[in-house]
């Protein structure tokens, strides 16, 4: 594959001198823990707020919950540049589609637009995205589009480097038909556990609850994070 070979040689050519720290040459990545949960009447989404270049934290208050439309958000993980570019493209495509339709777009449509870009350019991109929102056809929905461009709907989904630490927590604590408050509690608890263990996740917890009535956003600061042990 010509493109892949060329990239490998270019990466070897750019030598890192001893004087410049590694974060001057590494790409910006959203390390990350992201999560989305469906409940009756909407979805709750959450993310940490750390963006890293190598070992340096480029932004400690990042907003990884990006609005794509009035009632549709995406949670971004992977390369910051790739996910920001894809989100911008899908926002444009979905906005155009919504105007053509003269109707609010479906979450499934947004998810398919993400999948289309992520799958077509799967060799060039490093993007793991969770699409979540509310529409009047199917209510609250969560779709996950991991690296590689798969698309699957799940009632609960976690993503990012910190997600590995909370699969067990999620499997044991998620129950179907939870209320919005229970979902917020679950998401903030899970994220704080992941942030504790994963070096690439941290900062503050950003939460959003999306339903027919609108989007409610909140921030849980570092000193207000749910505590699990005193160690």
């Amino acid at each position: 594959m010509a493109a892949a070979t060329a990239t490998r040689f270019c990466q070897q050519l750019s030598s890192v001198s001893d004087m410049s720290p590694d974060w001057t040459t590494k790409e910006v990545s959203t390390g990350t823990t992201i999560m989305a949960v469906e409940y009756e009447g909407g979805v709750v989404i959450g993310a940490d707020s750390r963006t890293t270049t190598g070992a340096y934290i480029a932004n400690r208050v990042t907003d990884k919950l990006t609005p794509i439309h009035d009632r549709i958000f995406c949670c971004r993980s992977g390369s910051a540049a790739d996910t920001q570019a894809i989100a911008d493209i899908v926002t444009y495509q979905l906005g155009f589609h919504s105007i053509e339709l003269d109707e609010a777009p479906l979450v499934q449509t947004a998810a398919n637009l993400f999948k289309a870009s992520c799958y077509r350019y799967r060799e060039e991109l490093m993007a793991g995205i969770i699409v979540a929102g509310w529409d009047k056809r199917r209510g609250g929905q969560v779709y996950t589009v991991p690296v590689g461009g798969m698309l699957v709907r799940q009632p609960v989904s976690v993503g990012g480097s910190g997600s590995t630490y909370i699969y067990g927590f999620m499997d044991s604590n998620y129950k179907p038909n939870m209320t919005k408050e229970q979902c917020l509690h679950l998401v903030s608890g899970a994220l704080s556990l992941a942030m504790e263990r994963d070096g690439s996740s941290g900062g503050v917890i950003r939460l959003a609850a999306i339903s027919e009535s609108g989007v409610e956003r909140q921030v849980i600061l570092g000193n207000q994070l749910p505590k699990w042990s005193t160690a």
Partner: protein
Amino acid sequence: MLNTSRPCQPQSGGFSFENSRRNAVLEGNLSELGYSSPKARKTGTTIAGIVFKDGVILGADTRATDDMVVADKNCMKIHYIAPNIYCCGAGVAADAEVTTQMMSSNVELHSLSTGRPPLVVTVTRQLKQMLFRYQGHIGSSLIVGGVDVTGAHLYSVYPHGSYDKLPFLTMGSGAGPAISIFEDRFRPNMELEDAKQLVRDAIVAGIFCDLGSGSNVDLCIITQAGVQYLRAYDQPAQKGKKEGQYKYKPGTTAVLTKTVTPLPLDIVDESVQLMDTQ
């Protein structure tokens, strides 16, 4: 899909990687002999920006390095984009310079087209879309700051095309020392003099604690009223004055022996060339 496209089609634009393999081999051969191939000049650099009560302040050092040699002791890293928008550039000097010039030109055309003064977010969007298209091969990290009709804004744009919007930012090899000054003393809605001192201190931290940054502090203050470009606002790293005389008087060293050997020289050829002194 890229994999199914015809691989033998010649590249129409963008970068050409034809010589990459040859260059890698040459690099390997040279390093065996103890040499290294010439590198693109990087600006080393400490650049910083903050949003204060009346607008934004951008700051930068003025050293440009060629590996471990200072190529330019007083270069300008704060570039003009629009009357109300300026941009600090770090990374590869040529990339930062040309990228900002292209943006300045695009923004002026766009502004003429819309009939409105440019927005900072427009510059950021055009920058990140261009840098993303080049997938990080254009090595310029930029801090874009300005005041437009929607207020004062500050963005950082990375070589791969990601951006962050924050009230204070630092970039370049000296970003670590500079951000620590900001994290300690930044407050929202600072007064002008406090804000100038803070940015000056952050750049000075970069100048003293980072080898890739040095020389003077440049500041650029952008407010609703206008722009103040303070070139060489502070010169913290001036050359020290010599304390004493280091010349020795003739006779300090005693002469023990003296041997004179005249060399016999014969004139082989004598020619006269007239100079044209017009």
